[in-house]
């Protein structure tokens, strides 16, 4: 390199370019990570195929695939916005990535925007794949797509808040263990593949207040039963989103 190569010429890239670059980069990292793909793509797809075609769980009246698809879509949202984001961000914090980016031109709020875009892009891929599989299994959805979008958006906000709260406060290893454990517990107890009414009454009511249950039951109300807007489930998700994002904003530690 010749004289003058390093002559200072500093400057931040335009905000839009920084956010896009960051979102693309994070999505690429996520799709390259085998464990993340297992969680976000392989497990939801397998559950959908397995439980739709093999009569393991009694999913009530109607086609199993019509019951299972909304639950698996909720699971996909949780796997990306909560589990995947918590683990990835926890390790970024642990390995000083967040710290290093903190000294780069991208502002913190823009970094968070990029993370959200990356989560949404991944969800789009998941939903595309899962609905294609569901249609292949004979899925016949009802309801208004806008209601579905609203549920998915609120669900993403709720799970992102909780995921970031965990990633920004716990040690990375603790986040890894806890995020996977929560994924497993909510998969079973969150109305994803097992209907909530299989649990005893009070337990079912309590489980119904979980964000995963609100999302899977809400999506089911719309996609299986053609409801317009499941207000209770939307309300539960909104409260989780407010609490999770609020706590994450207050308690998140960057190092």
């Amino acid at each position, binding site marked *: 390199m010749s004289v003058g190569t390093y002559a200072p*010429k500093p400057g931040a890239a335009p905000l839009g370019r920084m956010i896009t670059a*960051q979102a693309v980069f994070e999505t*690429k990292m996520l799709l390259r990570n085998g464990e993340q793909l297992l969680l976000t793509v392989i497990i939801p797809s397998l559950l959908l195929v397995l439980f739709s075609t093999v009569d393991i769980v009694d999913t009530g009246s109607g086609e199993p695939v019509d019951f299972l698809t909304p639950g698996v879509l909720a699971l996909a949202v949780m796997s990306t916005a909560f589990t995947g984001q918590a683990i990835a961000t926890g390790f970024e914090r642990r390995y000083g*990535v967040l710290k290093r980016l903190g*000294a780069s031109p991208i502002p913190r709020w823009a970094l968070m925007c990029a993370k959200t875009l990356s989560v949404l892009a991944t969800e789009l891929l998941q939903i595309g794949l899962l609905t294609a599989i569901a249609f292949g299994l004979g899925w016949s959805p009802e309801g208004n797509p806008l209601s579905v979008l609203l549920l998915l958006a609120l669900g993403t906000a709720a799970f992102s808040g909780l995921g970031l709260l965990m990633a920004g406060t716990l040690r990375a290893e603790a986040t890894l263990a806890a995020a996977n454990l929560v994924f497993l517990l909510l998969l079973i107890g969150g109305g994803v593949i097992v209907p909530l009414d299989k649990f005893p009454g009070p337990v079912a009511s309590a489980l119904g207040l979980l964000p995963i249950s609100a999302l899977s039951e809400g999506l089911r109300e719309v996609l299986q039963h053609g409801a317009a807007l499941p207000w209770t489930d939307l309300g539960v998700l909104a409260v989780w989103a407010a609490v999770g994002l609020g706590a994450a904003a207050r308690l998140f530690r960057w190092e």
Partner: protein
Amino acid sequence: MRSESAVEIRGLVKRYGTKTAVDRLDLDVRAGSVTAVLGPNGAGKTTTVEMCEGYRRPDAGAVRVLGLDPVADAAKLRPRIGVMLQSGGVYTGARADEMLRHMARLHAHPLDVDALIERLGLGSCGRTPYRRLSGGQQQRLALALAVVGRPELVFLDEPTAGLDPQARRATWELVRELRADGVSTVLTTHFMDEAEELADDVAIIDTGRVIAQGSPEELCRGGAENTLRFTGRPGLDLGSLLKALPDGSAAVELTPGAYRITGEVGPQLLATVTSWCAQHGVMPDGISVERHTLEDVFLELTGKELRG
């Protein structure tokens, strides 16, 4: 043109609980210079640098970096500085070239990434993810990330720790090129030779304070005694030699015919010794001057016992 300081630190204090990590520290970094911050482990080097980078808020005192407050003016300052952390800072699954390209994309006028990869020998990293790169490769990538945005000022925290000699030389060469192009550099280091080779100014920090500051030459000259040695005929009259030397000098015959003079060894003293030898018909063989290295100064100032 740029006469102002790149960094100005006055009365800086940082406490962690009851421990005072940085204790009323003053430091100036001249624009366009290379300043080395030397000190034993736990002296407060990294804490000081991280307050300049805006990572930590001072408990007292003032820091101005490029005329800005690193915390309050962070958004304005960040694009203008380059930061190399002591370790980490890269996505574990990212390849060296894609991380560097990504950092370049966050800047308005980045360096040519391919040329920088070539310059720092990062091409050998190939498709290996960051977590499986060697320590030296990770260090060189961190250095590249610090300079790719064409900053005015770079902070390098122990830039050559764990590098092999060739990679160290390459890093030094890059720092010299940065200086030649007008970039200011602040580097922390444990290596005296690194400070001696690279730095225009050295600040020695211990227990959170600057205990000595100046160019490497000034620091080596100041206070510390130097040594002149020669061999000649055994049994020279050292009393007569001492009378000719300035006060405070000492002369001994270490072994028959091997002489050592200590004191403020400069051109004057050397001339005095050689002319005394000439008067006494002595041929001073193997005459040599040992000037103190920065390491001697450092150990003298910070003590010789090992610390955590």
